[in-house]
Structure formats: C-alpha cells, structure tokens
C-alpha cells in the first residue's frame, strides 16, 4: 500500500519514541534487529557480476560492468571504479522521474566510499599497461522496492555482486564481447556499511521507510573484517554527541559481523 504523503507527524513521532523506550518498533522488531535478509548472486547474465538482495520488503539489485580505458593521471598503475545509483520511481510512490536527486547521489557516494577506501577491489591488479590501459569497474545499484535502508542493502548487493564478478577477455586492447572467464575480479576485503539511526534517545538499525521519515540523525559506518572503519557519513538534521557516536559505531561494528556472514553464505 502506498501514499504519496509521508504519514508521520509530531504525535506519531512521539508515539514511536515511546514505543522504542519499551524496545518495540512499528513492526515488532527489536532496536538492533535486521529484517529477514535474502541474497542471490548471478541474477543478470548481461552483467559481469550481479546480486539481488532482499531485506524485509526492501529489494535492491546491483550489477557490475567491466570496461577498459585510460587510468587517472595520479594513479597510472591502477584500475578505476565508480558506483552509480538511482532512486527509481518504480520502487516507491514518493519518487518521481527526472535526474538523480541528492538522495540517490548520497546513496551512490556512501557505498562508493566504503568500497573505495576499504580497498575492496585490488585496483593494482586491474592495470593492463601502466599509464595506458586499465580496467574500470562500473557498479550500478538500483532499488526495485524501497522500504528503507537503501545504503546498507545496496552496499550488500554491491559487495555480493563484486564477489560474483568474473573477468572478461581482451584482444587488441578491446573487450571480447560475451566471453567470460573463470577468473574472479581481484577482491581484497569486504567493507560492510551499517547505518544506525537516532530517534529520540534510541538507536535503531535497518529502518523501514516510515522509520527513516522520523529520524533525528543517522550515521553510516563502513566496517572491515578486522573491525576497523573505512568510511563514515552522518545524515539527518540533529546533532550527535560523542557518546552517541561511540554507541552508534559499536552497534554498527556488531551488526557488520552478521551482515558479512550473510553475504559470505550466499557466495
């Protein structure tokens, strides 16, 4: 069911706050509970790698396309990567068509930051000829049904798709169309993004679309296998205290283990 108007008002927000104090969310979940997650890889044959992730009602598809081109001038011996995302009007009644708004740009850039700074892709191994020819990894993350938490679910889809990616053959500096190899894309790490919301004095993870509408602030934390952090993004109009940040990061690190396990199980 849908309505174009977000249903929240101040009284409903108070209501959610009161319920959270008793540890109950709108759908009965606990504050640190993720919805049911289902991950499928290799769902798009035209992509070099792909994954479909469902988290509750949120469903996101990610596809990887490999291209060849020139390296950046300041990293002549490395391949390049880029994350693109669009908030498709297909996925939620509140979206209308048109060029990507700031929200979809944020989703793309935060997922990008995690993967790039976490060095998920071994870009040195993507160099074909120094200074002349390198591989470019294009990661596109698109929601099919948006019921909240696009960054985390999109991030999981991107990571699963990267693990699913197989290299293409090159001949005469051009990609041979339709010839996939068994060689995996060189991957070094799995930086898992976890977004923690602050509503009143409560921290929750994996918000639904409704819960996102009443957030005071949020913090996305990209966590590596050794619990170190490689990307951060604060959102929302309210501020965070140092105590808040400590608590949110601890919660994010804790949840990242669960999510990484889920991704690895699906590979």
């Amino acid at each position, binding site marked *: *069911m*849908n*309505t174009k*108007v977000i*249903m929240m*008002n*101040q*009284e*409903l927000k*108070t*209501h*959610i706050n*009161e*319920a959270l104090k*008793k540890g*109950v969310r*709108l*759908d*009965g979940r606990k504050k640190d509970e993720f919805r049911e997650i289902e991950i499928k890889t290799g769902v798009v044959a035209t992509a070099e790698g792909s994954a479909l992730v469902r988290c509750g009602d949120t469903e996101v598809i990610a596809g990887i396309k490999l291209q060849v081109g020139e390296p950046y001038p300041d990293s002549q011996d490395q391949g390049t990567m880029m994350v693109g995302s669009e908030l498709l009007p297909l996925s939620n009644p509140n979206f209308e068509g048109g060029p990507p708004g700031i929200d979809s740009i944020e989703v793309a850039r935060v997922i990008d930051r995690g993967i790039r700074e976490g060095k998920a892709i071994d870009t040195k191994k993507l160099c074909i000829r120094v200074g002349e020819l390198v591989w470019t990894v294009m990661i596109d993350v698109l929601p099919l049904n948006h019921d909240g938490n696009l960054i985390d679910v999109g991030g999981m889809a991107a990571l699963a798709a990267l693990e699913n990616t197989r290299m293409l053959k090159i001949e005469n500096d051009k990609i041979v169309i339709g010839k996939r190899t068994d060689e995996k894309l060189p991957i070094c790490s799995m930086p898992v993004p976890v977004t923690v919301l602050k509503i009143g004095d409560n921290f929750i993870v994996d918000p639904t679309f409704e819960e996102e509408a009443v957030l005071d602030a949020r913090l996305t934390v990209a966590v590596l296998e050794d619990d170190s952090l490689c990307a951060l993004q604060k959102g929302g109009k309210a501020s965070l205290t140092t105590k808040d940040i400590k608590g949110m990061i601890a919660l994010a690190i804790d949840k990242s283990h669960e999510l990484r396990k889920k991704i690895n199980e699906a590979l």
Partner: protein
Amino acid sequence: MTEERLLVKDKDVVVPGEVLATGMNYLPGQGTYRLEGQIMANRLGLIMIDGKVLKSLPLAGRYMPKKYDMIVGKVIDILMSGWRMEINSPYSAVLPLKDASFSYIAKGADLTRYFELEDYAVVKITNVTSQNLVDVTCKGPGLFKLRGGRIILVNTNKVPRIIGKKGSMVSMIKRATDCKIIVGQNGMAWLSGEPEMEVIAVNTIGMIEEQSHISGLTEKIKDYLEKATGRKIEVMAEAAEIGEEVRSEGDMEQNGHEERHDQEHRRYEQ
C-alpha cells in the same frame, strides 16, 4: 446460436479479459461487460452471481471518494475558509470552517486552534462533485480529531472484511489487543494502545488483507489472536463467512456506530 454456459462460480477470482459466461442468458453487472456472445471481466475481482447478473467485487484499486463514507484524513493545507485534507485518494478533500466544530469559529480566527497541519481526523464525506471535488465534515457522531496512536494504510477494497459484519471482525481485534481502532473506508486506519498490542493488531489486519478472499478467515484470525495475545476470544454471533460480509457492503454499519463509546476523544478545542 452460442451455447449458454456459465464458466465461473461465486467467489472465483477473475481477471480482465476472462470469459465468465457464453450466450445471452446472463447480464453484465459491475466489473463485467458483454462482448458479442460472451460476458467478460474488466477488472481484477471476486465474482458475485446475483440471479442472472454477473458482478465482480474489486480486489484492488485506489480509494474513490463516496458521499457518506467515514474516512480518516490528514490536514495538508490551511485555507482561508477551512482545511485541505489528504484522504489516500487521487483527490483531496476540503473541511470547511462551518463543519469543523460545534463551537462558533469567527472569520479571521486562528484556524490552527482547531486543526493544525498534519493533524489526523475521522471525518465524513458530505459531497462529491462530478469533478471529484470532495467536502467533508467533522461534526457528527464518531467524528473527531485523532490524538496519539499510529496510522496504517490498508487496501480500501478490504475494509469491509476488516471491519466485518456489524463490526464483528474489528471488535474481535480490539477486544484481543485492548487497542482503539478506527478503520476509514478510504483505507487509512488509526490504532492506539500498548506498542506490542498495536503490532499484533497491525499484523492481524495484514493477515485479513492477504486472505480476505478465502473462507474460514474468522476462525484463522481468532486462532492467531489467541496465540499472539494468550487470551481466549469469543467470536461474536454475527461474525460471518466471506459471502455474507461481502454482500453486506450495502447495509454495513459504519465506523460511527461502532465508535460511539469512544466519544471521550471528541475535543474540538486545544
């Protein structure tokens, strides 16, 4: 001469373009049409055979405002002479000054004393023009501004099933969860109670929505509520199977009668 055949039975799910009957014996009602020697469905629905007339009750479709419907709306704009409300429909509604309160509201008064932006209220549709302009009133039994609680959206076509014949289904949920519940004809519903109980009520309503076309639902709902709340629940005598509830669309008692005992919530002043 086309053979006379009825190809569907009562309560069958039918889809656009499906042939329901052949020959000239049957007549097309709501949701069906005649194409030469056949009666076909023209929307997703549940078949109702009324003598010689084949009708289909819609299973999906957004709410279209109807006069006398009791609905839940949200104030989205404050006008010179009233308020505009979102009513979960392609069309918004206007609550005129004169229909907001039993007390006198002077011209130029601060309208936000009565309804502010984003306030929710139970209102009744007083008029729908041919261009789908909608007027509502908040003066009358069971009509009032809503305070607290939460709002959910349900399929407007399933509202009769959620309310039940003479309110029996929604009463059962209310008794089991101790929640106040108001289900608007427009698919906007309000609940208020303990958080865990609200969740049970919301899940129950979701179950009814999904299985509204299946018989034996009342028993299933009763079992679910008993398991979830740990209480024994009595099913009221009038609680009926799908056929009766679906046919009682016309004679159904609206929320107003059901909610009379909730009138302590009538507050027209801040």
